[in-house]
């Protein structure tokens, strides 16, 4: 426990140092609050608008998690299908890789048009499309990048394809899937907030930030950014915890002294 605290000490010290430096610079040079509000101002805005911010964060997380679930489920289903049918894989994968470099967020206004500006579904669809490709590509990799000797071992036991899938390919894919899920957790929140910038219900983080900034209430906008960051980190940590539970055998879960 003590060694753990010591491990995080430098990071904590840096964090406090930066905040203190920021506060000092803003006060010493009387920086205008619309350029950069002081941390103390952001903290008080956070406290003052906590109910509003909590509601907005709740709505945004709902969109992010909903989209993440839709996109992730679809991606894993497609990956399983393509891993099973090689022809489908060689036809689909080049497009998937190409689509992965498309700035999906550019579709946000179109999604608003399709699913309704005020509906959380339009944001969920942006997020779903955003997380689909990394999750799908990684899952396919995990299902297909199997040690040839392991496959040969299964063949020596005359194992069926379904048995190879369940006992070898899927467990082999899990670390790949979780790597993609962790990346996508952050991506989901970015997607949801940016999609909200293109229009959405009032009580969401994206709209809150836009409105407050438009009225020069920059401390409030910054407070919303802090809440968005915290939500994103929380989502990531939840996925991380799920990973530890699901694949305790994996190298990422091994304690360094074991």
């Amino acid at each position, binding site marked *: 426990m003590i060694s753990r605290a010591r491990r995080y000490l430098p990071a904590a010290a840096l964090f406090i140092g930066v905040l203190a430096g920021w506060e000092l610079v803003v006060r010493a040079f009387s920086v205008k609050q619309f350029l950069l509000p002081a941390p103390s101002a952001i903290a008080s805005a956070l406290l003052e608008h906590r109910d509003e911010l909590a509601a907005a964060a709740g709505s945004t997380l709902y969109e992010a998690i909903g989209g993440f679930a839709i996109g992730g489920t679809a991606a894993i289903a497609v990956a399983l299908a393509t891993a099973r049918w090689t022809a489908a894989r060689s036809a689909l994968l080049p497009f998937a890789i190409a689509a992965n470099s498309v700035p999906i967020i550019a579709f946000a206004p179109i999604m608003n048009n399709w699913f309704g500006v005020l509906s959380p579904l339009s944001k969920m669809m942006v997020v779903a499309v955003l997380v689909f490709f990394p999750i799908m590509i990684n899952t396919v990799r995990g299902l297909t990048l199997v040690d040839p000797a*392991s496959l040969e071992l299964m063949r020596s036991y005359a194992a069926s394809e379904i048995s190879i899938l369940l006992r070898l390919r899927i467990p082999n894919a899990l670390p790949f899937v979780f790597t993609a899920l962790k990346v996508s957790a952050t991506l989901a929140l970015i997607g949801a907030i940016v999609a909200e910038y293109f229009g959405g219900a009032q009580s969401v983080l994206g709209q809150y930030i836009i409105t407050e900034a438009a009225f020069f209430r920059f401390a409030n906008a910054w407070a919303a950014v802090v809440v968005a960051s915290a939500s994103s980190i929380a989502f990531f940590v939840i996925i991380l915890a799920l990973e530890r539970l699901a694949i305790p055998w994996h190298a990422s879960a091994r304690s360094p002294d074991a």
Partner: protein
Amino acid sequence: MAARTLSARRRVSDASDRSGTGSSVVSISAVHKVFSDGDQRTVALEGIDLDIARGAFVSLIGPSGCGKSTLLRLIGDLTQATTGTITVNGKTAHLARLARDYGIVFQAPVLFDWRTVERNVELPLELERLPQAERQRRASEMLALMELGGFERHYPWQLSGGMQQRVAIARALSFEPALLLMDEPFGALDEMSRERLNLELLRIWQKTGTTVVFVTHSIPEAVFLSTEVVVMSRRPGRIVDIIKVDLAQPRNDLTREDPRYFELVTRVRETLRRRDTPQTTDST
């Protein structure tokens, strides 16, 4: 080259064989194996005739690229012969694989990271659809036999290389196959672990009566372990000679000091060297 019959000394064994048909477990006749890669044709094996008697411990030895691993994989139906026939346990190699007549151990342990030691050993038993209790009983029995008792719940990465390879052997023998195929199983281990595992393997072979086909490039290892050493030539791989190892059973550390052991090691070495000079190919 005429067909040669390996006559292993019959031993009393307490293990039950899966099929009692005939005295040879592996019977290979006129096998050729050609690898084609585009226009490139490589003759890996040429005119292989070999019979392996039930209960024998046969080593395949030869220079790298002589096709000894290919021959082992042919027996296991992990690759197919270009011409010729291979019979395993009274069936074609293909049917023998489908009937799970052999267990295999590779140079790497090939354990599944996500399974504990015990569950790795249970893998072939799961595929045989044995009930859970029976699987567990057999796995713990095999692990005890491999002196791995107490490590059932460990994950492979928590074990040393030698221990991992012992788990692989336990897994290969857990379903009591008639035949054990081993492809340089101790090649990646240090000398100490290797010698220890040699002794352990012999003890298990004595106890189970399994027929073993063992690929190695270590001459002392081949002589120490085997009842017969099959010496192969450089590509195209042929059987140059089959040297019967008449050292007393059971073998132990003293075997390595027996003058007869040195004689046989020298004989295998000379056979290999004679065959290694390219000019003298096919003079038998």
